[in-house]
């Protein structure tokens, strides 16, 4: 077995996913590329959203890819860090808001 689950060079092999199922693989990449084209949001804004989401889903490949994408687009490190904080705030907020559930159950069951 490999010593680590994640290897940076595997990111470059992402396209190989189509080797085992071309039809679905191609559909995915077509969709993926269309999503990141400039539309109502600029490609730059989408890149920052992708960076924030990459951290929320904690995908090392995506973090690598969208940090590099940001550098190529001239996105500043301050902008990148703010985007990561937006992701982190939503993720921690999502955990914390469940405290309301805890409070509800606690109060319902307590005398």
């Amino acid at each position: 077995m490999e010593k680590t689950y994640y290897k940076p060079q595997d990111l470059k092999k992402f396209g190989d996913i189509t080797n085992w199922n071309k039809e679905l693989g191609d559909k995915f990449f077509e969709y993926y590329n269309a999503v990141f084209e400039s539309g109502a949001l600029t490609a730059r804004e989408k890149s920052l959203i992708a960076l924030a989401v990459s951290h929320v889903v904690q995908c090392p490949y995506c973090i690598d890819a969208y940090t590099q994408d940001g550098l190529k687009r001239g996105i500043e490190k301050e902008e990148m860090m703010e985007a990561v904080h937006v992701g982190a705030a939503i993720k921690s907020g999502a955990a914390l808001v469940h405290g309301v559930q805890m409070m509800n159950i606690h109060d319902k069951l307590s005398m």
Partner: protein
Amino acid sequence: MGLKSLHARQNSLSNTDRQLEILSNGIFENGELPRFIDRIDQKLSPKKLEILQINMGYMCNQVCAHCHVDAGPDRKEIMTRKTLQMCLDICKNHRISTLDLTGGAPEMNPHFRWFVEESSTHVDDLIVRSNLTILTANKTYKELPEFFAKHNVHVVSSLPFYSRNKTDRQRGDGVFDKSIKALQTLNALGYGQPNSKLQLDLVYNPAGAFLPGDQKELEADFKKALLEDFGIVFNKLYTITNMPISRFLDYLLATENYEDYMRELVLAYNPTALENVMCTNTLSVGWDGSLYDCDFNQMLNLKINGPIDHISGYKPEINKRSIRVSQHCYGCTAGAGSSCQGALNS
């Protein structure tokens, strides 16, 4: 990052053989990556000669971290008037449409003004690659913007980014503010303004071990930011890939980015860009009159193939030569391609 040239630091990379050795060994020797010559699978030859690019000397008022020339104030290599006269004769006697003056800071050559005055009427496009800060350096140079306008010089200026931090990190403290001032002066003379014949283009190169983003998108970002923040306008933005030679090679090696950067360049190889690489329509003249396929080959001391390798023996037949390539050429063919005129497939 040292503030001196590799040359002044007596760094082993100031020896061009050492650079070529690095570019040929390791991942290109053990079979992991194909050598450029094997990848292109053909001989590269010039087409029509359109651009004569003259390196007027390696002296520069700046010492940028990425500089492929290894230029700096300590470099004393300067083109003589005699050699410049030979370049001028070629422009007069052969139809060269574009003259591209580079350095170092070409303005620091003592014969610069004479040469611009003499050559401007013999070519369609006279480009001066100016680092901008030289135009604010002292009284002698402060008159240059008017001089440029008078001779209809096409100014191509490097500005790594539209923000102070990124620019100063690559080019040194204070560079951004001086560059902005110089751009405003050029704008006031009509440079870069709509409907003006005075052309002002900017050059962007990445501040690190990554490829430049899309030229059109970056141009739009630069235009918006420079106009909003400083009221600056310009014509085109050229994105240029950092070549893995000289000081940028030193940076890649020191930060252990060399192999990954070369992998990225090779992976991004674009055969369409190969069709238009700079060496196919440009001839580069070194400060001592030696001839090269491009400014990058000049910095690797790869003189052109064939019996004639000096401007004094120039004959149009040298266009039949094959171009000398090595692994640094992957820098010209990666992604949208790269040349002194920016992306090749934009």
